[in-house]
């Protein structure tokens, strides 16, 4: 009985805090995406003739982002049922957009007009809650800024 209370408490904490953190993160991402709109990013460039540019430089952006207790619980549940796991969609989406933004913001500070040949890598990071298996991911974005 006591354990059930703890579980429910953690689920509630995960749900409430997780939602607030996620909403804030999305609000922040949207503001920064609007601010950096004028600099396009492309994932083409490797097999093209070299573009005209005065300077070229590697830029990277990365983030390690964790799921919350509630999402992980939901995902565990979905695993049993099979089919699509929606719980982690927003986590991966946030991670990728955050990593791309960090790369882009750095490139803009340097004076980039665009960032080409962008690549995105995603890796899972282990966790300390073996029983629940709360997922943490690292997203790493890199590309060549041109000015």
């Amino acid at each position, binding site marked *: 009985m006591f354990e059930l209370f703890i579980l429910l408490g953690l689920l509630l904490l995960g749900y409430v805090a997780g939602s607030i953190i996620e909403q804030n993160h999305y609000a922040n991402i949207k503001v920064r995406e609007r601010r950096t709109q004028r600099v396009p990013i492309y994932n083409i460039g490797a097999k093209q003739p070299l573009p005209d540019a005065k300077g070229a430089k590697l830029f990277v952006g990365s983030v390690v982002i964790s799921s919350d*207790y509630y999402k992980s619980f939901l995902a565990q549940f979905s695993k049993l049922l099979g089919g699509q796991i929606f719980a982690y969609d927003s986590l991966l989406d946030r991670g990728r957009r955050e990593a791309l933004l960090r790369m882009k913001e750095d490139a803009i500070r340097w004076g980039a007009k665009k960032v*080409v040949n962008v690549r995105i890598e995603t890796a899972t*990071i282990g966790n300390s809650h073996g029983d629940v298996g709360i997922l943490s991911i690292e997203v790493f974005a890199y590309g060549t800024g041109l000015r």
Partner: protein
Amino acid sequence: MTYQRSSSRGAIIITTLEGVPGRDITKHFGLVQGSTIRAKHLGRDIAAGFKNLVGGELHGYTELLQEARQEATDRMLQQAAQMGANAVVNVRYSTSSVAQGAAELFAYGTAVRVD
């Protein structure tokens, strides 16, 4: 962020393209690479443990992996500098699990001289 390392000939240029825009490749030195292997479990880290419950960014781990990747990049640039290159082009990064709880961060590219 971005990686910076100087050789005897000034800063080594890194790009993910087949060359450096506006410069001509005068010499190819071949493949250069750098890697580092790190433990990647979030054990014994109370802050991260709590963060795991509520979600969000784990700043400590973001920085840890950034430093590790910087190190892999540095090792690659070191090789390039030893060869006498002033640029590394077509750079790629990869992250792979080499063992339970260990990740290898790997950087590789082609060392060239551009004028």
